[in-house]
């Protein structure tokens, strides 16, 4: 710590920090634009000027930029000095010479950092009489609006997009006051993290296009803390609603998980909530019925005949799954996972419980000094993780910078060392990944060969680990290189997961992690869905066993919870199962092939209208809350399930959470994920609506002129209201980030221990599993994959847009789905006589035609594999087969 004096007051601040970060961490107001805690200092905007004095005698001092000035013990500065205040005000005046002042029609208005800073500096009167320069705007695709005239040239967009996120297609063009931030030509932004531009931009240049389509001011949005539903990482989000429609999703800062950033799937995937495919009424045999009738029919089903079985879901909450499990009985509860995924997730849980290796948060991932990714294209399987790994790849630059006395926040200086600092990220994947640009080395192979490389690395690290037989020379050499790097690392990290659908790969990853000599080592597995890990921790039999249960006649009714089983198992098999079942009850939010088969359909609330707990891949239990009340008769799945229980002490969510916690030792801590419904601040519930929420008395006037009462929420500590105190709310319950004078998301400074650090009172979520014990080496090493002549193995590859079920139903995401094609190695394509774009016919080994589809050549895909986009409904017909034949389609029967 260093002791410095600011405007005559002594403060203790972190050594090595810059003055701006130090001042903000102390809760002081100092305006800034170009600085960002995740991006470091740039020194471009000149907004954070303060006066620095040589000593106590020095009364005049000199102007310095706080962001560029390291704190030093006994330093004396002034924020309030007139000279500094005047400079900051004049600087804003300059920034604003070309700004259009179009706040009333600007979507940033009301949460605009530029507005806040302008007010903070006191600049009010505009002296500039000249013309303003104008720019052309670009169409940047379905996610982002572009309004360059508002630009104040803080350079944050390119520093985030290019430097931080590895994008290439957003650049600075031009010079002097005509600098232009955009693409070379119109077109969708290519980087998977483009949506963060909306929050990184301090004004309204980059705004959320999906929000524009149904825009409301920030102060008119109703918000509750939420968690992203679109992958297993559990990024924290703050969705906003108005008029019963989900309007947008923004980042909710969590210092351990997502920090400041979300991926585009998480930000723009919310549209499914407003989808016309939403199930809004209970239906019996395709006829709408009342909620009461639905409940009583449901009850009768349960009472009559043989026992019912329940099929749970990796995208439903722990509470909903637990309610179902309780309703049907443990022996009749099935996880709703296809066999391979079931086995993989069980193994991952076992490794996390007993493997003895720490499962890191994303913050910890960023601190890794060597990384081995085994079998994952993380940008597509767990996108936000890719952004963290990209930062981990920079750690060697930070070390080098340290040796040159360059501080970590001196961003350009650290980045200038990047070409000298060797990356220690190694990627073994099926084919090229979006992180390859920061990798020291890449390897492409079949899942078997990826696993073999992993086993070989483990053996290089520790001779007692089993070695693969007959390993190729190239693989052996690579294994030695990777092992050497990992061995030298202080904080090595192994990343693997379920993408390859290969148990071998997961076991190999464990062997490598176990063999690492470092004590501070980490092993992270990606999982496909928001509660995959929670469901696996809960445990239960597989889908195949459910089929058997019905097939053998031990049970005759099926209750399916938030799960489109057609996405998981081959259609014909499922058709048989559902036909055999006497009664099929489906609780879900969107129509799909499974709901179409239901006798009784029950409308479920989405994450935006209900509460629950999910467990992310780290093993962190996190609570999400309804943003707005579900429209009757839509209700949370857990509510449907508990409403039909004979004797329900679980009519309230907290009781259900508590029961779930006590039923499973690994879930015991979920009650601590957030305070319960009885939590109040100064005797009131926490308001979901900001204190400036407008139109409350008028918004329903077309229905009834008198103001309706606010809906009650007995399940959470929140009120659907603007009344109440948000002053001292625990981090897990912070709906809106706001502080006096700070209307933009930058107000988060006021809630952090240090800028960019942990939230005061700790980051939300509770870690459920800590590393303990150790397991034996896995020794079941597969032989190398050898393509068979004339046969191809189907290899589903995750894609950020398309693989995940719910986001795929969002219009903006649907516009970005990958091309419908199969990937082939160029040698395979040559053998078949096809080129990119040519159609091929895919048939089963028995010659049954499955699909005609264009080919895309992927040079990095191993021979003998046929790459398809995982989860894309168009590929559902391929589920039945693992091996297929491919032939060229003749010209006459082209597609």
């Amino acid at each position, binding site marked *: 710590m260093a002791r410095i004096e600011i405007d005559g007051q002594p403060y203790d601040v972190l050594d090595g920090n810059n003055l701006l970060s130090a001042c903000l961490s102390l809760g002081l107001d100092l305006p800034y634009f170009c600085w960002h805690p995740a991006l470091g*200092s*740039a*020194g*471009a*905007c*000149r*907004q954070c*000027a303060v006066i620095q004095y040589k000593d106590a005698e020095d009364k005049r001092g*000199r*102007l*310095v930029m706080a962001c*560029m000035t390291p704190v030093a013990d006994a330093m004396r500065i002034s924020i309030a000095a007139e000279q500094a205040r005047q*400079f900051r005000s*004049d*600087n804003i005046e*300059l*920034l604003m*010479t*070309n700004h259009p002042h179009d706040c009333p029609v600007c979507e940033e208005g009301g949460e605009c950092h530029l507005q806040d800073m302008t007010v903070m500096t006191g600049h009010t009167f505009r*002296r*500039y*009489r*000249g*013309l303003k320069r104008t720019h052309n705007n670009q169409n940047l695709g379905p996610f982002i609006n572009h309004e360059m005239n508002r630009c*104040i*040239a803080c*350079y944050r967009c390119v520093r985030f997009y290019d430097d931080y996120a590895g994008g290439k297609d957003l650049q*600075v063009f*031009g*010079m*002097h*006051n*005509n*600098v232009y931030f955009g693409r070379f030509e119109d077109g969708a932004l290519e980087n998977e993290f483009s949506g963060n531009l909306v929050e990184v931009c301090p004004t309204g240049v980059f705004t959320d296009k999906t929000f524009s389509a149904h825009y409301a001011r920030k102060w008119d949005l109703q918000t509750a803390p939420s968690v992203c539903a679109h992958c297993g990482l559990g990024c924290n989000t703050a969705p906003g609603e108005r008029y019963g429609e989900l309007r947008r999703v923004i980042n909710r800062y969590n210092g351990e998980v997502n920090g400041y950033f979300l991926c585009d799937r998480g930000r723009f995937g919310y549209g499914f909530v407003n989808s016309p495919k939403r199930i809004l009424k209970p239906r019996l045999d395709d006829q709408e019925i009342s909620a009461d009738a639905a409940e009583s029919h449901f009850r009768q089903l349960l009472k009559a005949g043989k026992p019912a079985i329940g099929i749970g879901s990796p995208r439903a909450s722990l509470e909903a799954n637990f309610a179902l499990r309780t309703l049907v009985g443990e022996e009749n509860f099935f996880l709703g996972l296809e066999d391979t995924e079931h086995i993989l997730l069980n193994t991952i849980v076992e490794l996390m419980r007993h493997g003895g290796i720490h499962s890191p948060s994303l913050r910890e991932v960023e601190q890794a000094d060597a990384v081995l990714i085994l079998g994952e294209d993380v940008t597509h399987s767990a996108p936000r993780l890719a952004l963290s790994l990209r930062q981990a790849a920079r750690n060697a630059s930070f070390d*080098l910078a340290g040796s*040159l*006395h*360059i501080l970590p926040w*001196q961003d*350009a*200086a650290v980045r*200038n*060392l*990047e*070409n*000298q600092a060797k990356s220690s990220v190694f990627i073994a994947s099926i084919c090229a990944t979006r992180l390859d640009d920061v990798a020291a080395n890449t390897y492409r192979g079949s899942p078997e060969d990826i696993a073999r490389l992993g086993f070989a690395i483990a053996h290089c690290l520790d001779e007692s680990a089993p070695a693969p037989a007959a390993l190729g020379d190239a693989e052996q050499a690579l294994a030695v290189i990777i092992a050497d790097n990992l061995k030298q690392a202080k904080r090595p990290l192994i990343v693997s997961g379920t993408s390859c659908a290969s148990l071998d790969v997961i076991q190999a990853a464990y062997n490598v992690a176990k063999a690492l000599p470092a004590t501070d080592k980490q092993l992270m597995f990606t999982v496909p869905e928001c509660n995959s890990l929670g469901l696996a921790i809960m445990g239960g039999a597989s889908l195949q066993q459910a089929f058997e249960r019905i097939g053998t006649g031990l049970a005759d009714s099926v209750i399916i919870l938030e799960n489109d089983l057609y996405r998981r198992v081959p259609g014909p098999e499922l058709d048989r199962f559902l036909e055999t079942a006497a009664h099929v009850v489906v609780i879900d939010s969107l129509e799909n092939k499974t709901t179409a088969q239901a006798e009784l359909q029950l409308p479920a609330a989405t994450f935006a209208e209900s509460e629950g707990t999910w467990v992310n891949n780290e093993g962190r239990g996190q609570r999400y809350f309804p943003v707005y009340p579900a429209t009757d008769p839509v209700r949370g799945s857990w509510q449907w399930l508990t409403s039909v229980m004979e004797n329900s002490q679980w009519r309230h969510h907290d009781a259900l959470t508590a029961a779930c916690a006590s039923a499973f030792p690994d879930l015991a801590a979920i009650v601590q994920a957030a305070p319960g419904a009885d939590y109040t601040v100064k005797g009131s519930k926490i308001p979901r609506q900001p204190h400036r929420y407008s139109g409350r008395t008028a918004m329903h006037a077309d229905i009834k002129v008198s103001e309706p009462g606010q809906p009650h929420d007995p399940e959470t500590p929140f009120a659907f209201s603007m009344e109440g105190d948000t002053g001292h709310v625990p981090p897990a319950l912070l709906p809106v980030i706001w502080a006096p004078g700070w209307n933009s998301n930058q107000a988060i400074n006021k809630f952090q221990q240090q800028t960019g650090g942990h939230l005061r009172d700790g980051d939300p979520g509770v870690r459920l599993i800590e590393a303990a014990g150790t397991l034996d080496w896995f020794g079941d090493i597969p032989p190398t994959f050898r393509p068979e002549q004339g046969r191809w193995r189907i290899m589903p590859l995750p894609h950020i847009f398309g693989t995940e079920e719910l986001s795929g139903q969002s219009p903006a995401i649907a516009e970005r789905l990958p091309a419908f094609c199969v990937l082939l190695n160029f040698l395979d394509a040559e053998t078949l006589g096809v080129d990119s774009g040519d159609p091929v016919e895919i048939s089963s080994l028995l010659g049954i035609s499955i699909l005609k589809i264009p080919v895309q050549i992927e040079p990095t895909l191993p021979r003998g594999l046929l790459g398809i986009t995982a989860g894309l409904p168009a590929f559902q017909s391929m589920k039945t087969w693992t091996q297929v034949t491919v032939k060229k389609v003749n010209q006459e029967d082209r597609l």
Partner: protein
Amino acid sequence: METLAKPLTKNIRPDRAFTTLADYESTGGYQGLRKALAELQPKDVQQWVKDAGLRGRGGAGFGTGLKWSLVPLDDLSQTRYLVANADEMEPGTFKDRMLLEQDPHQLIEGMIIAAYAIQAQKAYIFLRGEYHVAKFRLEQALLEAKSKGYLGEHILNSAFNLEIVLHTGAGRYICGEETALLNALEGKRATPRAKPPFPLVSGLWGKPTVVNNVETLCNVPHILHYGVEWYQGLARGVDKGTKLFGAGGRVKHPGLWELPMGTPIREIIEQHAGGMRDGYKLRGFLPGGASTDFLLPEHLDVVMDFEAVAKAGSRMGTGVIIVLDDKTCPVRMVLNLEQFFAQESCGWCTPCRDGLPWTVTLLKDIIAGKGRIEDLDTLAGLTRMLGPGNTFCALAPGAVEPLQSALKYFRADFERYIAMERA
């Protein structure tokens, strides 16, 4: 002895012919390099240059030997770079151009010695893109030097190796700023870098780098060849050596002359440039290029030394004087300059990017008769706002120097325009 009085220009001939390697060697060329490699350690070379009192000729006047001595030499395996800043783009300044076009070996020899002094094995010449003639002549000279063993491996049978790469810029004033130059050389946008870290610690591609002006480097061979004492004896004032001084504007003989440091400005304008053209009177002058403050006829006796000019309220800058006569409007002259600087701002920091265009708007308004008297306060405020320390690099503080001094010395001219409007 003529040769010794004008070491920098001794090979420069009235016909502007190119000094070949043979010509260059015949007047003592590469003798300084031979001495350095044969007799001196790198640290000794640094000491000689430090003792000689050579100060950077690009405008800032930082001690050259001192700069070199700050490069860490302890790790011999470390890559280091030397860069010759030949991006001469200061309006009114053309001194380096003459050295580059007519005696390129002098620069090359200076670079080899400098590279030896800092133990750099690779050096770059960052040449202004518009200097086509210099480009061809440097290319030829580099080939000659290489074929004669002055460049490449084991230079003059020593253990020292050096490669020199000629890089031509794409025409941006900001590339003359040494860190923007380094970014441009790396293929990045020509935006200056924050200091610290200084290029001496982390420069080109993050390696220790020395950037020296062309004229600075051209002094080096002579210091080595003729010695420190001789060099110190050249000057008439406090600063050492000779320098290229010039004058442009409505003088009788605009031109460039190598003169001792400490030469009075009066001598340059009245004697060497032949005084004002008939019918014109001297109204003021920018002593060292467009980005220096105006001085007045009363300052003619100031001598061309860094401190002396600074004391008079301006900067020696590049030492090439722009003369303002009584028939040229200072307001329009300043507008012309500010238009240049506003255009050449890199766009990185706010005061420069948005402040300079505003000065242009205001000056245009004033000249167009749309000015207001309070605009002069706004302009003065902007010159303070864009002053040293407030902006990211030195472009804007230099850019407002002619404006701030014009407001001081020629305020009546501004007011006349504004009054015209009132009337």
